[in-house]
Structures are given as structure tokens and as C-alpha cells.
């Protein structure tokens, strides 16, 4: 179930094997490797290697976690990176995490798919380890389900809803119809977005919830959206579903009378959709490879680790979180970090963050990483200079405004 490929582990084994073979002790390589591994910081990437979210997380997340380890360099302790596929199933993810924590893994990274993230969140707390979340969307990770062992790095449903919805209402899109994936993530995204639309003086004219993941054709829902006469079509879904919804909307001419709002969409989805169909879409991310000199430098450094693809937002989050975690470990010493996940996370919160992907920022008491959110518009084919040149920056929301205010999340760490 778990595939373990390690960067340094293999090298360690080989080294230990060579050393002991030289000494003529055939039985020792295993013990030798283990003895060395006991001093090492072990980071496990739990991600979607085989499903819907593979392209936005998966191998890219592993590659950028390894990039963080490489950029961190040698500071007196070894770092190992492991990887596993959670198949988007909470039980599988929880099993891997439990097993890894018992085998001395200190931190788990990425955890896309909200349901899996929430399951592993409990286990990390129970075992007093570190949960560095990049891939999950649910804002509950820093709200009712917040934990002293967790850092939620990259984005969440609140930030997506605020950045995109506010911009569209400002542009005059004040009446909305939602097409929503009928599960926790879709409901949360629709709820958060509706709140912002109403808060900005707009209105929600209707919604339709389709069965997830069993729906391939969205034309029936598009027809309902059209007959609602709303100005904006809010798509509270993700990945292939969003791509199919947009393709259908263009086919049925919705884009002429309605503005399309993709509430969760990334570079990989745009590539799948094609610029022809995607041009003019507004969407929000916290990282884009071509955003500034630092992101371009990171992209250049990590080239070849995941084919010809530049880092997407979630892998970039794995990079930032891993790098900051390692800095905290270096400051407090690996032994102390291994002893207590809460202490390691507290140290992370105490230190200011700075990395090439997200720039300067900090981690709040509830575990929320604070950095700016960016509103992008998808380029027209004529404006694009390369296969990955897909966004124009429209607006930036400063970190303090981009995420849910500390007091509104309902996190128990704040009340106490």
C-alpha cells in the first residue's frame, strides 16, 4: 500500500552496506542504516499519486519537498524524504500516517483531499508529530478542527472565496448561481463564497448540487444556471469537474451572458482546458511560478525534478512548509524536534517565515500560514509566450486580509 522511495535513504543503505561489507560483517547493513536513520529527521509526503489530484499534488509535491531539503543544505543532521499514495481515502491516509509515526517519521507533508487531511490531523496530534498541510482546502483545519501539531500552509476555502468573489462582485457580477459538487468541500466553498457575495451587496439566485464524483456531463445544470438569469456562474468544484463545466458553458453559450467564476482552479487545470476555452477566467492562487524573480529562481532550480512542469501551488506549499520546518529543527536541535511535534510547531510559529515561493510571512497561533493571495486572469492564446505562460496578475490581497480573521475561526487554541 505504501510505496517508499527515499532520496537519502537509498544512499545511506548503500553507504552502510559498502562500509560493513568492507569490514566483512554481512548482517550489519540493516542495523547500520537504522542507527544512522535514528539521528535523521524523517519527512513523509502523503499525497495523491494515482487519482484525480495527481497532477496538482502528487509527484510535484514530492519533488518540491526534496527541493526544500536540497536548498536547506547540510546543517549537521540528515534529512530523509519518504512518499506514499493515500488514494484519496481517509482510511488509507490514516493507516500510512500511523505506521510512519510509529517508525520514527517526524513530519507528514501535503495531505491533499480535505477528508484525508482531517483524519491525519487527529493522528498527528495523538502521536505528537508534525502535520504540514499544503494540499487540503478545508478552512476547518485552522477552525473547529485546529491542532497545535498542524500548520496549514498554502490556501483554504475562505481565502479562495474571498479573493475571487470579492473581485467579481466589484466588477459588477452581483447575482450568482452555483453549480456545486455535492460533498463537504463543495458545500464549504459555496457557503463561504455566498457569504462574500451577500456581504458585498450581491445576491445568490440559486444553486444545483450534482453527485460527486459520478457526474461527467454538466449541460443539464448549465441550462438551469442560464434560466436563473444570474450574472455569474459560481463553480464550487475542482479539477476535471471544473474543466468539464467550463467546456460545457462555452459550448452552450453561457459565457456570453454570464461571467464564469472558477473558485478552485490551478495551472494544471488551465493547461487541460486550453487557453482558447479558458481565456478571461478569474481565479485565485497564492503561488504562480512566473510571479516574481524569486518564484522564477525556484522554478529554475527545481527544473527536471518533475519533468518539464513548473511547480504548481500545492507543491510550492510543500516546499515552503518543509523548508521552514527544517529551519525550526536546526534552531531547536533535531533531538528536541523529534521529541515533541507541538514544540517543533511552536518554534515554527515563533520564527518569521521567508522562502522563494511565498516571500516573507508568519504562522498564526491557529496554525494558519499568512501570505498574500493573488487574483489572476487567464491569458488569451495570443498573449501566451509558452506552454506554461497562462496567467496575468490582476490584484494582490495582503496576507492579513486574505485569510479568515483569527477570532472568527472558532479554534480552541485561541480561546484558551
Amino acid at each position, binding site marked *: 500500500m505504501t510505496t517508499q522511495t527515499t532520496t537519502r535513504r537509498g544512499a545511506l543503505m548503500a553507504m552502510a552496506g559498502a562500509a560493513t561489507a568492507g569490514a566483512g560483517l554481512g548482517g550489519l547493513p540493516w542495523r547500520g542504516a537504522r542507527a544512522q536513520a535514528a539521528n535523521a529527521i524523517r519527512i513523509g509526503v502523503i499525497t495523491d499519486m494515482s487519482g484525480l489530484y495527481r497532477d496538482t499534488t502528487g509527484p510535484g509535491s514530492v519533488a518540491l519537498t526534496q527541493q526544500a531539503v536540497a536548498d536547506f543544505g547540510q546543517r549537521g543532521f540528515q534529512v530523509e524524504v519518504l512518499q506514499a499514495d493515500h488514494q484519496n481515502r481517509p482510511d488509507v491516509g490514516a493507516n500510512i500516517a500511523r505506521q510512519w509515526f510509529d517508525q520514527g517519521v517526524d513530519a507528514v507533508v501535503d495531505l491533499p483531499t480535505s477528508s484525508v487531511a482531517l483524519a491525519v490531523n487527529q493522528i498527528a496530534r495523538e502521536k505528537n508529530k508534525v502535520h504540514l498541510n499544503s494540499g487540503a482546502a478545508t478552512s476547518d483545519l485552522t477552525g473547529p478542527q485546529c491542532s497545535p501539531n498542524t500548520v496549514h500552509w498554502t490556501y483554504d476555502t475562505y481565502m479562495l472565496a474571498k479573493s475571487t468573489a470579492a473581485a467579481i462582485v466589484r466588477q459588477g457580477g452581483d447575482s450568482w448561481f452555483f453549480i456545486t459538487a455535492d460533498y463537504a468541500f463543495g458545500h464549504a466553498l459555496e457557503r463561504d463564497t455566498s457569504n462574500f457575495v451577500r456581504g458585498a451587496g450581491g445576491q445568490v439566485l440559486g444553486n444545483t448540487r450534482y453527485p460527486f464524483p459520478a457526474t461527467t456531463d454538466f449541460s443539464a445544470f448549465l441550462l438551469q444556471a442560464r434560466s436563473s438569469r444570474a450574472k455569474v456562474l459560481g463553480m464550487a468544484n475542482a479539477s*476535471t469537474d471544473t474543466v468539464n463545466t467550463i467546456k460545457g458553458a462555452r459550448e452552450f453559450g453561457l459565457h456570453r451572458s454570464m461571467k464564469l467564476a472558477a473558485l478552485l482552479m490551478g495551472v494544471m487545470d488551465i493547461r*487541460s482546458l486550453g487557453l482558447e476555452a479558458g481565456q478571461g477566467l478569474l481565479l485565485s492562487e497564492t503561488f504562480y511560478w512566473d510571479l516574481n524573480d524569486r518564484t522564477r529562481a525556484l522554478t529554475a532550480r527545481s527544473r527536471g525534478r518533475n519533468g518539464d512542469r513548473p511547480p504548481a501551488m500545492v507543491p510550492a506549499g510543500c516546499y515552503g512548509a518543509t523548508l521552514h520546518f527544517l529551519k525550526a529543527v536546526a534552531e531547536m536541535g533535531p533531538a528536541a524536534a523529534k521529541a515533541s511535534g507541538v514544540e517543533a510547531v511552536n518554534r515554527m510559529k515563533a520564527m518569521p517565515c521567508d522562502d522563494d515561493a511565498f516571500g516573507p510571512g508568519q504562522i498564526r497561533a491557529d496554525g494558519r500560514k499568512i501570505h498574500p493571495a493573488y487574483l489572476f486572469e487567464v491569458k488569451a492564446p495570443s498573449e501566451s509566450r509558452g506552454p506554461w505562460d497562462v496567467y496575468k496578475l490582476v490584484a494582490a490581497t495582503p496576507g492579513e486580509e486574505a485569510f479568515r480573521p483569527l477570532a472568527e475561526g472558532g479554534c480552541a487554541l485561541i480561546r484558551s
Partner: protein
Amino acid sequence: MDAIFGIPMPLLFGQLLLGLINGSFYAMLSLGLAIIFGLLNIINFSHGAQFMMGAFVAWMLLSLGSAEAARIGLTLMLLPLVLLLLDWLWQRLRLAQPVRLGAGVVVAAAWIASAVFMEQGGPVSQALGAMFPQGLSYWWALLIGPIVVGASGVLLERLMIAPLYKLDHLYGLLLTFGVGLIIEGIFRNEFGSSGLPYRIPAELSGAWDLGFMFMPVYRGWVVVAALILCLATWLVIEKTRLGAYLRAATERAELVQAFGVNVPLMITLTYGAGVALAAIGGVLAAPIYSVNPQMGVNLIIVVFAVVVIGGMGSILGSVLTGFGLGVVEGLTKVFWPEASATVIFVIMAIVLLTRPAGLFGRA
């Protein structure tokens, strides 16, 4: 009256039409399944993967000039066709079976190795790129897609499914299920999970304003194409000599063989034809759905339900049920959208309880 149960009439008409459009996909796919089940008694669980392969061939053909992955992919997809043609040639030269098998393995190994390990995908993919720098259009894909994917089906039947005829049906089901998973896994590894772009061909883009709804030209074309395919298949099976042989072989294969008909060849070609139908469905779907490795998975579960409701192996049954269930599903999306994925299985349960052989099946 301009509303029924609070739903405006124009919306309702629109949904009926959309139901027919979706139904045409169900009909096309269940037709292939029904044919395969009728003659081979095999429930072809790799049908969804073969549908997906059809869509990918369309993308590869269009991207021949621009993407190396497309050139290499198409080179590998052409291998079954090349092997079948070589085998046919060798048979004409009266080579012995072990010799042909050995030579086939050598050719396949060389072909795969050159595409995977050589610079820029080896000579074949370079030639493909040089010959078609603009790629091949949708219309070529409609022709080439079913041939290429159908050939892979023929090879699959000869090498893996044929040895299982002696065993229980379950083995065929498990084999095709496994093969489907492997194919989807390979495509996911090579092309990722988020899908590839494919545009509606210029000739079929645009829409008609019907008053009560916008009718995209392409969706209209899908319905027409599906009707033509279904009608043609039905005519071949019911009205031609070949169809008569097929129907006879379904009843009593030994007897038909005794009359000098090459039944094993007919079975192989039937499987290939069923797979080719799935591939045409895939090519038709490429412009409107995201071309990704999972695209067949959700559709195929519904299509199996369609085949069961229509009556396993009944061709007319699958076609009518396909269109009918498309409409039922479309109406459910208006009145109770959350249940639109479930309604088909509820109907399946009711039909199985009252008519275990399906609506059009013979008990």
C-alpha cells in the same frame, strides 16, 4: 401552461433534449458491450479504458506536430495494428506459428524500445511528426481512432481472452477489468490526471438558438452520429449474411463451424468491432469532455447498468434503453439533482426484481 411542477416548460424541453444527447453516448457504448457479450459471453470491463483510448488517439493525432508525448504515444498505439498486419503477411508466406510468434515478439520489443529509449521517440515517431506537422484533424481521428484501438482489441482477444473461453465467464470479466486498470494506470503515468485540451472542430462549432435553449451544433452531430452507428450496426446484424452467421454462432457455435464458417475469426473480429465502437465514442467525446485517463470510469458504470436494464446481449434493448435512461437522468437533474447518479441504479434494481432478463432480454 408554461410550467410543470414549478419548472418552466422551456427548461423542461431543454432537459429532454440534453437527455437524448447523453443517451446517445450511453447507447453507443452499451451497443459495443452488448455485441461483445452476445457473441463472446464476456462482460468487457475494459470498455471504459478503450473509450478513453479513442479520445487519446484523437488528441495524439491533433498534436503530432506539437507534442513529443503525442508522437511517442501514437507510435506505441500503432504497434498492435502493425503486428496484426505483419502476422497476416507472414501467414500468407506460410510461416509456422512458432516462427510468427517469435518474430512478433522481436518486432514488438524493437518497436517499443525504439519509441521509449531512443532520442525523440525513435524513427517512427519522428517520421510521424515530419509527415504531419499540423497534426491530423478530428475527421481523421473518427476514422483512425477506431482502427487503432480496435486493432489493440483484436490483439487482446487473441493473446489473452481467447484462452479463457473454456473457463467460467467470471475469468473473462476479471481479466478485462484488470487490463482496463493497467491501461488507465499507464495513461495516468504518461499523461497525468488533469487531462489534455481538445477543441471542437471549426466545422461543428457554434450553436443554434432554438428559442427554449441554445443547441450546440456539436451535440446535435453527436446524436446524429450515434443514431447512424446504432442503425448501421443493427442492419449489419439483422439484415446481412454476416449478421446471420453471427446470430447463429451466438446460438450454436459448433454447428456454425461445422458448416465451414471460421467462428474463432468471427469472434475475434466481433470483439475488435465492439472495441472500435467504444473508441468512436471516445473520439466523439474528446471535444466536449476533458480528455483524461479517468474519463471512461464514471461513464462505464452507468453503461453497464444500461446493458443490464436493456437485457444482456440485446442490441435493440441497449440502444433504446440508452436513449431512454439518458432522458430519465436528464429529468432527474431538474427535479432532484442530488439523485441523478442514483436513479439509473434504482431503475436497474426494479427491473432486475420484476424482469430478471432485462426489458428486452430473453429469459
